[in-house]
């Protein structure tokens, strides 16, 4: 069972601000799901390599050439707040 402190730690890592009600709900639901996932312990995976993706591709290379790119105005068009060509955000330190 996840404690409230553990839920708060994961919420902080996730950058989520949860209400006490949400913390209790997610604590309870995540505990159940993780308990269910415990069935994986039945598997002996000592010699099994992990599969991160299924394609037989390694690194994909391309020529380092200047191509078409997104014009600045388009890249900025969804900015919640801007200052010239900068994305503006609240105080950092």
């Amino acid at each position: 069972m996840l404690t409230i402190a553990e839920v708060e730690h994961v919420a902080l890592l996730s950058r989520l601000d949860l209400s006490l009600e949400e913390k209790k709900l997610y604590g309870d639901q995540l505990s159940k799901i993780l308990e269910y996932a415990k069935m994986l312990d039945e598997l002996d995976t000592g010699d099994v390599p992990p599969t991160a993706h299924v394609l037989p591709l390694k690194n994909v290379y391309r020529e380092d050439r200047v191509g078409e790119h997104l014009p600045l105005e388009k890249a900025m068009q969804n900015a919640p707040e801007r200052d010239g060509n900068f994305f503006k955000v609240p105080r950092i330190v």
Partner: protein
Amino acid sequence: MDLFYMTAHELHAKLAAGEISARELCRAFLDRIVSVEDRLKAFITVTEEMALKQADEVDKRIAAGEELPPLAGIPIALKDNMCVEGIRTTCASKILFNFVPPYSATVVEKIKSAGMVIIGKTNMDEFAMGSSTENSGFQPTSNPWDTERVPGGSSGGSAVSVAAGETVLALGSDTGGSIRQPASLCGVVGMKPTYGAVSRYGLVAFASSLDQIGPFARDVDDCAQLLNIITGHDPLDSTSAPGEKTDYTAFLNSDIKGLKVGVPREYMGEGIDPGVRAVIEKALQVLSSLGADIEEATLPHSRYAIPVYYLIATAEASSNLARYDGVKYGLRDEEAQDIVDMYMKSRSRGFGTEVKRRIMLGTYALSAGYYDAYYLKALKARTLIKQDFDRAFDRFDVLVCPTSPGTAFRKGEKTDDPLQMYLSDITTISVNLAGIPGISVPAGFSGGLPVGMQIMGRPFAEGNLIRVAHAFEGSAGHRGKFPSLI
């Protein structure tokens, strides 16, 4: 027959013969949307202006005497997680409520070049996380066969738009069954191609090692035509598979004599609704009568697929969704005092319950002290699941099973218990974990609701799936039924 229930190949013949213009066709579907949409809520955005403009361009090409490409002038709907330049793309999330992409996805460029008419952006579970389209941040979508029921998900809007005659074709995305399951529950054809067969450039990422774009269609012929357009290598997607393009229509109208069909016993037993099982057993008899050789198969690690999927998919999602921070686009909380406060408040306000739950689960599985026990363990178990399929395909050409363990469930029936909702994906998620192609094709009805049969194949054997699905469709004898929408 009503125009809005015709297939793309039937409508193409009408356009080519000059019986109808692309504009008239487009208008007919826009009218259909107006008449049924209040009951279905399949769309987030209807792109009327753009659609009519694209239709007019097709009419100009017809007037100029050009030969009409197969899907030119045919309306298509796109799941609202595919970027279309200048058209709001929300992923059914409040966090992207105002996002207007500055570029288009590769699939969008491809369907535009084919002369297809984009009629709108469809509803979905927020960020494609769900199996019922009830997790949309805007509205739930209804199943046209019974509006008290869910259409499945997460591409519920795309499935409904095709099933209800609001469009001819649609694109969805499938991370754990999100094309095949709603196709099954709505009575249409839906395919998840092999991982890497269709470019993901411009598809908003959920779980990058599992996500794949694929078609929804009224029949297998239409599905093959749309597959022809969207597949192919794309240098803009580093996980796009290199290789020559295939003409999938070449696999239509071919026989399946001697084809080896395996039926995984794990997908026909406990947990499968008896009505669904009866429909699939009858479908297997049809395949057998067409000369296929049917035998029991086994995928021994099937029961581990659900925990493996929900650890890997959420881990990848927690990383992918870190980008929604209120800095460059999307919702920003204006009250925040400093930047971390802004991240936390923007994300908490913008994401819905299921998305937060999955970010939390994925973050936990990746966090210090739990990575080996959960995430790495799941990656290793994924190898075992993939090996099950490799072994099965040594013996069989295709595997067949129910697409979903049940028919469309009632709205609200599974929303309180996320684990129950996750369990409804048992027959589809392994296909994503193994990266292989799967198609859901209508197989009949149980209790008045559609049942889909899933056909799975070796990597890049989409042609074989089209071949089997088309042969089955031509002999199954349940076609020609449409939702009454009274």
